[in-house]
């Protein structure tokens, strides 16, 4: 089949755009570390290891080509975080952007939260396309006029100017996390958000930066007894009192903030009993959950561990309702993947707009889509070779053993340095953003 997509099995994915440098020599600062569409899908933000945020804006559909969706072009670029030094611990704090989350739009300006390991910042992105001219006390270039030379008065008027997009930091939420922040999530009340590190989750008010509430703390009294850490956390999309957090042991805890101020006691614990036939030396590592995402409906949540994507019904804690194998052929390679550090890669996952398809990344610049309704899956590749405008992506297949067919790639030929950790799906349309190491690919369905 050609592709998996929302609403049917006849979706074909086409290349649309690629952003970023072409040369193979990747600067570390350019490595993309997070990708996120805003709530309308008009804006697409990326964060990189150098602490920069780049926002792309979708152009309005052109009247000449009504069948084509607008392209994404650079809208704003700014330095969100700088490297810092913690003098007390003699540690450098990386400027890498771990997560970006958009706030729902309330006025003309756009707001997003970006975080590195220790500090969260609220950025306001606003447009300026008019400039006041005709001041009485200032010249056009800004120099002040001598008041004694002013003989007449005039009213300054706004004149159009070239569009300027300004990003300004409105709030800085700092000094609340001892460990490394892995998640931020905006509450549906649009007033609060949570930030999670390895051992604690804090609740913030977007207006208040000088204090936050700790709502989850799993730090043991004796750190030598530590057995699990928090790996991801997210607020429920509709219920402002509910959030989930995942752990390195493969469990997900759902907490209700109405029950108590400190949500150490979970309301629900989602855990799948381990399959004894799959037990191996590295079982614990590969069961660590790297991402958790609620469905848009709020009925389901999806978790990603090293080899699988699981869909959970919030009403059933005993096991997931669906399990999808992302790259099961890697199960026999875990020892090598441990040695080359790939086993520690944290893959993210995402839902499409109507929760019918889920997507996640893999190695060799492959990414996978699973159509929940049609029970189909497809493997596609983000590569410069298949980057001709509107060229349809060909499904890829990995040969797991035996005779390799034409067009198949064997497991040993996979390039484990080319990994797709971050993907995002447009909230309404079939447009996806897929981040390779330092490039951002945008694909859309063939109209």
């Amino acid at each position, binding site marked *: 089949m050609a592709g998996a997509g929302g609403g049917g099995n006849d979706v074909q994915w086409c290349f649309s755009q690629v952003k970023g440098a072409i040369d193979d020599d990747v600067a570390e600062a350019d490595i993309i570390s997070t990708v996120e569409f805003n709530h309308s899908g008009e804006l697409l933000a990326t964060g990189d290891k150098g602490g920069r945020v780049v926002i792309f804006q979708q152009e309005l559909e052109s009247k000449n080509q009504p069948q084509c969706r607008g392209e994404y072009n650079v809208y704003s670029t700014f330095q969100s975080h700088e490297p810092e030094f913690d003098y007390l*611990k003699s*540690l*450098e*704090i*990386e400027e*890498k952007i771990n997560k970006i989350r958009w706030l729902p739009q309330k006025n003309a300006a756009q707001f997003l939260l970006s975080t590195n*390991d220790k500090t969260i910042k609220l950025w306001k992105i606003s447009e300026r396309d008019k400039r006041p001219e005709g001041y009485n006390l200032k010249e056009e270039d800004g120099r002040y006029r001598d008041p004694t030379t002013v003989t007449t008065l005039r009213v300054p008027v706004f004149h159009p100017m070239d569009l300027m997009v300004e990003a300004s930091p409105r709030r800085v939420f700092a000094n609340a996390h001892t*460990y*490394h922040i*892995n998640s931020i999530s905006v509450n549906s009340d649009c007033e609060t958000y949570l930030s999670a590190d*390895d*051992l604690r989750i804090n609740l913030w008010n977007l207006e208040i930066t000088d204090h936050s509430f700790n709502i989850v703390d799993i730090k043991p009294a*004796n*750190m*030598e*007894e*530590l*057995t*699990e*850490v928090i*790996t991801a956390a997210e607020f429920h999309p509709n219920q402002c009192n509910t959030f989930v957090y995942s752990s*390195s042991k493969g469990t997900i805890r759902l907490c209700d903030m109405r029950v108590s101020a400190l949500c150490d006691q979970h309301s629900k614990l989602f855990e799948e009993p381990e399959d*004894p036939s799959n*037990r*191996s*030396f*590295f*079982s*614990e*590592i590969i069961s*660590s959950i790297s991402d958790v995402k609620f469905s848009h409906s709020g009925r389901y949540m999806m978790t990603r561990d090293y080899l699988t994507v699981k869909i959970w019904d919030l009403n059933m804690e005993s096991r997931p309702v669906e399990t999808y194998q992302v790259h099961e052929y890697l199960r*026999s390679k*875990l*020892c090598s993947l*441990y*040695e080359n*550090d790939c086993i*520690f890669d944290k893959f993210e996952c995402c839902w499409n707009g109507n929760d019918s398809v889920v997507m996640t990344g893999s190695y060799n610049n492959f990414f996978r889509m699973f159509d929940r309704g049609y029970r189909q899956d497809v493997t596609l590749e983000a590569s410069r070779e298949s980057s001709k405008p509107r060229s349809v992506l060909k499904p890829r297949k990995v040969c797991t053993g035996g005779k390799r067919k034409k067009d198949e790639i064997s497991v040993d030929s996979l390039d484990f340095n080319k990994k797709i950790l971050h993907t995002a799906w447009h909230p309404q349309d079939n447009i996806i953003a897929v981040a390779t190491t330092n490039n951002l690919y945008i694909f859309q369905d063939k109209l």
Partner: protein
Amino acid sequence: MDVSAEAKRIMAVSISKLYASRAQRGGMRLHRSLLLSVIMRSARDLYHSACLAKEREELGTAHLVPVTPEEDAMDTTANGEQVEVEVSQVEPEPESPLTPPIQEPMSSDSGAAQGACKTRTFSGKETVEDKENRSPVSPDRHSRKRRGKASVAPDFLPSKRARLSLELGEERVLRTGRRNCCRAGDAFTTLSLNSNRAIAAF
């Protein structure tokens, strides 16, 4: 021997990763350190079980009873608090990493040996733990010293750590005649102690 060689290799890889992570930008990552120490502990357990199985083959069952508690006493001295943790972890989970088939290194023969070995090791450790509880004045002052140190002081003093490791190594060589297997094991047990303290240092 394949099993123990593989386990030793994995331990060496884990230890080198743990030490490399100290120099990482942004400091040590707790999650990664935790996973590394889990793997290293499993590898160490596997390695010791393999050693014990090998010894049993070489010496016969009769000689093993006095050796096992001593060896586990060495483990205890190396990882005071950790033994308690391990026992508590092993008890609810009888299917520890050792018993079920482990993909890469194990063959079915060594698996059976390991299963038997594990039971013995487990009971050995239990005995040792009881000893610890009954006699608060431990003959091994390193264990008590380390316990206090680990919970109070962060691990920022390389010179002290090296000296402690050296003392441990010497101590262990003196206390046992099982030089072939255990000396190599000593190094790993010592270094796995350090990884444990690496977590405690957070």
